[in-house]
């Protein structure tokens, strides 16, 4: 008997051939993270297996991200659409160099944190699911970087948000509850605004797929486009902790365990910055153009207020939190430029910032373990007690401030060059001033914590008797994993060529998303 659908012309709506096996790598990082999280929840009673499985899964995510970056290097953007529906009807995953590079940097940071966490996460926190939440967080972050659909981006934001809620209250100390209230309310509000912007965008264009939006959003009336772009900018700026919506970050990031602080500081704010770049560059380029003065002002204020805030802090973790905000300013400066140099520089800066700020928090964690306090005024004399740690820390101080030859220098160079070429002298001045102030704030932390003999006050010239030596496990896991990450930062800073090529590619595909659109619609356009 003939099928009733025989006369139906299927191809325009359905994908006929399966996606090539090699292209499935776009979803591997997310799939591995979600499967791993589920498995670890089932194994929550087995502490020994938790660590081994978490490390194995995150390592597998790193490997698939490396493969993804290599594929994107060779073949340009990759895409895959779910459920046999052709885009824009099916939900697409699409990776261009920006997404792939961010995803790789995020997973490398997470892998280091998995090892670091063994020195401080106790068995109660294990039972409450530190590792499953970490994997879910990584899944949400990678999903945000790799998805090709704006509503799906919202869903990944929420996956990330709910697992970060779990991580920030893990341990349940009073100060954590206080921080979590502020973190929770303001982030929920930001995602509500994000969803509203999606609603307006959908109402105007009738589609949610980035590639489809990119080809349709140009025809929008200017007023409507400006409204939607401004809503997106506000929502993502709040997520990224850009001035003036940055108050939640220094109120909350210093409260959980240092491994969690490191993950948050490295990964979460960059997702907001990534989403701002993706939506404003690819979907609403004209909206970005109109908002350029606003973005530039936000970038300038964020770049200056971040390190100034750090300068005023006596709590080491809160000082680093302010440095995270300063870095977000540099990312928005790249977005305000909107040129090849600006976007390429922003992508490179985010890669650097994910790795360096994770390492900065981790190194501060080792300092805290030795001195037993978060208060810089009570620290001192660690140079004599632990010389390797002081070298690691000073490398990070230079890297975060953007001094050559460390990793932070190269993106700053690109951004400054982009600013000079575009004639945006305010942004150039802001970027350079940001570096100077960051250097002042960070090197003063180093001077107080390592160089000064004892705590602040009368006894500052006498040896610090409060310090304790690291235990064997702390040396192995905490100091060891920090050293590995810092070594990676140094090597990448000394050999930045491939990163330059990659970020150049990323900027190119953001400015002219033809290759991205072609990759998503490859199946549709096939003759």
């Amino acid at each position, binding site marked *: 008997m003939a099928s009733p659908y025989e006369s*139906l012309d299927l191809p325009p709506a359905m994908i006929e051939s399966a996606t090539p096996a090699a292209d499935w790598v776009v979803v591997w990082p997310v799939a591995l993270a979600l499967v791993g999280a589920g498995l670890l929840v089932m194994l929550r009673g087995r502490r020994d297996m938790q660590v081994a499985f978490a490390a194995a899964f995150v390592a597998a995510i790193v490997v698939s991200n490396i493969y993804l970056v290599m594929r994107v290097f060779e073949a340009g953007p990759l895409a895959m659409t779910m459920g046999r529906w052709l885009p824009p009807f099916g939900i697409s995953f699409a990776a261009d160099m920006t997404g792939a590079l961010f995803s790789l940097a995020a997973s490398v940071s997470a892998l280091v944190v998995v090892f670091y966490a063994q020195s401080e996460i106790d068995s109660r926190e294990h039972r409450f699911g530190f590792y499953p939440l970490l994997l879910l967080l990584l899944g949400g972050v990678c999903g945000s970087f790799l998805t090709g659909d704006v*509503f799906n981006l*919202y*869903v990944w934001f*929420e996956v990330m*948000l*709910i697992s970060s*809620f779990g991580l920030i*209250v893990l341990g*349940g100390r*009073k*100060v954590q*509850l*206080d*921080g*979590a*209230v*502020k973190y*929770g*309310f303001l982030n*929920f*509000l930001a995602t*509500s605004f994000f*969803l*509203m912007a*999606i*609603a*307006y965008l*959908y*109402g105007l264009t009738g589609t949610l797929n980035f590639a489809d939006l990119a080809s349709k959003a140009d025809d929008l009336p200017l007023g409507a486009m400006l409204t939607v772009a401004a809503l997106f900018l506000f929502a993502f700026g709040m997520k990224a902790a850009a001035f003036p919506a940055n108050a939640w970050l*220094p*109120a*909350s990031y*210093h*409260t959980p365990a240092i491994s969690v602080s490191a993950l948050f500081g490295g990964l979460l704010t960059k997702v907001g910055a990534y989403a701002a770049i993706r939506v404003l560059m690819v979907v609403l380029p004209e909206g970005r153009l109109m908002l350029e003065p606003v973005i530039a002002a936000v970038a300038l204020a964020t770049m200056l207020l971040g390190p100034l805030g750090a*300068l*005023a*802090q*006596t709590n080491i973790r809160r000082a680093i939190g302010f440095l995270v905000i300063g870095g977000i300013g540099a990312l928005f400066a790249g977005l305000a430029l909107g040129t090849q140099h600006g976007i390429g520089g922003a992508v490179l800066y985010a890669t650097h910032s994910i790795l360096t700020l994770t390492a900065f928090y981790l190194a501060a964690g080792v300092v805290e373990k030795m001195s037993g306090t978060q*208060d*810089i*005024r009570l620290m001192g004399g660690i140079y004599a007690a632990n010389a390797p740690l002081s070298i690691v820390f000073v490398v990070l101080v230079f890297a975060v401030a953007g001094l050559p030859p460390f990793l932070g220098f190269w993106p700053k160079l690109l951004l400054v060059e982009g600013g000079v070429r575009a004639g945006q002298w305010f942004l150039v001045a802001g970027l350079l001033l940001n570096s100077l102030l960051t250097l002042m704030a960070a090197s*003063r932390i180093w*001077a*107080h914590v390592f160089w000064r003999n004892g705590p*602040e006050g009368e006894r500052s010239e006498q040896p610090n008797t409060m310090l304790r030596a690291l235990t064997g496990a702390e040396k192995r896991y905490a100091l060891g994993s920090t050293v590995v990450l810092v070594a990676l930062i140094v090597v990448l800073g000394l050999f930045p060529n491939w990163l330059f090529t990659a970020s150049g590619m990323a900027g190119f595909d953001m400015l002219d998303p033809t290759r991205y659109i072609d990759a998503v619609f490859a199946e549709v356009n096939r003759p």
Partner: protein
Amino acid sequence: MEIALVGLVAVFFAVAVYLLLSKSIIRMLLGIVVIGNAVNLVLFTAGRLTAEVPPIIPAGEYVPLAGSANPLPQALILTAIVIGFALFAFLLVLGYRAYQELDADNTDTMRLAEPEDAPRPPLSY
């Protein structure tokens, strides 16, 4: 119909902003609920309101009838409601725990993470 919903959304937003500006956590929680529903209604309205024809393809047809309702915003709202509910449940428990532990429903007195008598910036280099 659209105009009425837009008016409702405006009222919801006004209420939500008023509640969120409060110092009391419990009012802020109510504000969060209201703003979530306001956003869901925006999503609903943005999908155009054509309520007469359900989006079901009749037997013998290959495409939905003209003027049938748009099912996509409803799928989006369903997702958003589920997510919003989960987050709200978490915030509710968090607010209660904060009330128990910190003995404060007032954000002005929740200064544990950012102490009010914070030390002055160090002056030495």
